[in-house]
């Protein structure tokens, strides 16, 4: 076993947040990696849902898109996209939504729409896709993003999907009854919202990471929980599973 990378710690830690009984709406990219790793390790019964309509899917390699053929071939059932958004997401059937972000703020609000002004953007990003309603309809939201000052900003250029809004009570004022972001896993640390302020604070640091490193990679005035632990180390079994998954994926997508 080679040295564990921070990216690997991030993925394994994100995966560990998921339970066997979860029904998880999976975003593409880092979330997809973490969710499938959970399924291949400690949560074999987890239900993974992709917005393409595939329910209970068990891909052998990570999909490049949210609609690769294997997602459908290995699913319990595949429904139309209107049904997916009406019966399964809006219907309140999903326990965890797993998102990533181009930008996020300390309340877990997310931007995947534009950098700069909406009408005259510096960089036009893909947009929200399923995120605006994933963020409000799922029981809770996990977020996984690589740490950087570009991503972790004091103020979003655009609020694609709400986290805790401007703080305590904001979701409730909008009639939202779900928890919102409860966990944020980066390549440096794990953060959870302070129950009082709803602001993400560091609850564990990955092995070898200092507080200063996280502060420097964060664009807002970062808080730490009263007790900050070290993020539990990935097991060999988890690392094996992750590396094999990535290897299989790389080989599969290299050719048509």
């Amino acid at each position, binding site marked *: 076993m080679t040295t564990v990378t921070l990216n690997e710690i991030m993925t394994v830690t994100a995966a560990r947040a998921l339970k066997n009984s979860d029904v998880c709406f999976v975003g593409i990219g880092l979330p997809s990696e973490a969710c499938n790793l959970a399924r291949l390790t400690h949560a074999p019964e987890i239900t993974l849902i992709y917005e393409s309509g595939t329910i209970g899917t068990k891909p052998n390699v990570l999909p490049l898109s949210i609609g690769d053929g294997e997602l459908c*071939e290995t699913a319990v059932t595949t429904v*139309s996209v*209107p049904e997916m*958004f009406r019966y399964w997401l809006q219907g309140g059937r999903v326990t965890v939504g797993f998102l990533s972000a181009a930008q996020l703020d300390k309340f877990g609000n997310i931007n995947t729409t534009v950098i700069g002004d909406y009408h005259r953007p510096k*960089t036009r990003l893909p*947009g*929200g896709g399923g995120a605006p309603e994933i963020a*409000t309809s799922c029981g809770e939201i996990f977020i996984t993003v690589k740490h950087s000052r570009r991503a972790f900003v004091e103020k979003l250029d655009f609020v694609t999907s709400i986290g805790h809004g401007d703080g305590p009570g904001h979701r409730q004022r909008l009639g939202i009854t779900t928890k919102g972001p409860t966990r944020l896993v980066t390549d440096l640390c794990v953060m959870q919202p302070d129950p009082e302020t709803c602001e993400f604070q560091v609850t564990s640091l990955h092995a070898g990471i200092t507080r200063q490193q996280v502060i420097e990679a964060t664009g807002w005035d970062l808080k730490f929980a009263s007790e900050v632990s070290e993020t539990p180390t990935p097991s060999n079994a988890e690392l094996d599973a992750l590396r094999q998954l990535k290897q299989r994926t790389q080989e599969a*997508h290299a050719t048509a």
Partner: protein
Amino acid sequence: MAQFMALDAAIANTVRDGDFVALEGFTHLIPHAAAHEIIRQGRQELTLCRMTPDMVYDQLIGMGCARKLIFSYAGNPGVGLLLRFRDAIENQWPRPLEIEEHSHAAMANAYEAGAAGLPCAVFRGYRGAELADVNTNIKSITCPFTGENLAAVPAINADVAVIHGQRANKAGDVMIEGIIGVQKEAVLGAKRAVITVEEIVDEFADISPNAVVLPNWTIDAIAVVPGGAHPSYAHGYYSRDNAFYKDWDRISRDRQLFIAWMDEHVLKSSPQAFRVHGAGGK
């Protein structure tokens, strides 16, 4: 009533300059061949609609066919941004592109409402999302029983829906299966529908009674184009050409490279080219 015809005739007979066109497909069954034919025929001023505009919309936009785009996720999934789309938005190249941006939930509901003949879709959405501030087609409605405030968006009713399906039977009914997206809704909500298919069979033998079948009287034109979804895929026929989607990032990054690629592979090509693409699959 569905008429079988060649792809060029199918597009010529149904897609007009200025039309509201929905070429749908959610990663799967994306009608690339039909989109290329629209480009070859030089259609202009189109309002393009799709939940997930990807490579093929990048091509339509980059070739200047579109006046407006209605969408909810404009990326090359798993690869990155959609670079011709970006160039149109950020630099108005090759022409300005008006946008109407929604969430997936909104568009899925709007297609559903379009198929259902309703003027608008009602759903629980956009709460705390800033799109509601920049898109005037996002409104609200109050439940008369609970007083809950719900989101409303206009139904999507295209002039033409263009989709790719697995197969037609001789009567002209079309079956699609796998990831079915919003294709049925796009077709049933549209004034006209064009469908490309992998093949024609005598009849659909042994399919589920609940298989997704569009009866012939809901379709205007059917063109047989094997491989017509490539580099997207057709469940049961060929796989998604993920390597090609990755390569699109390179091709589309540079205006000249893009133009050269389109010239060679689309403008100087023909509907028959997709037989080759198709054979390159699974």
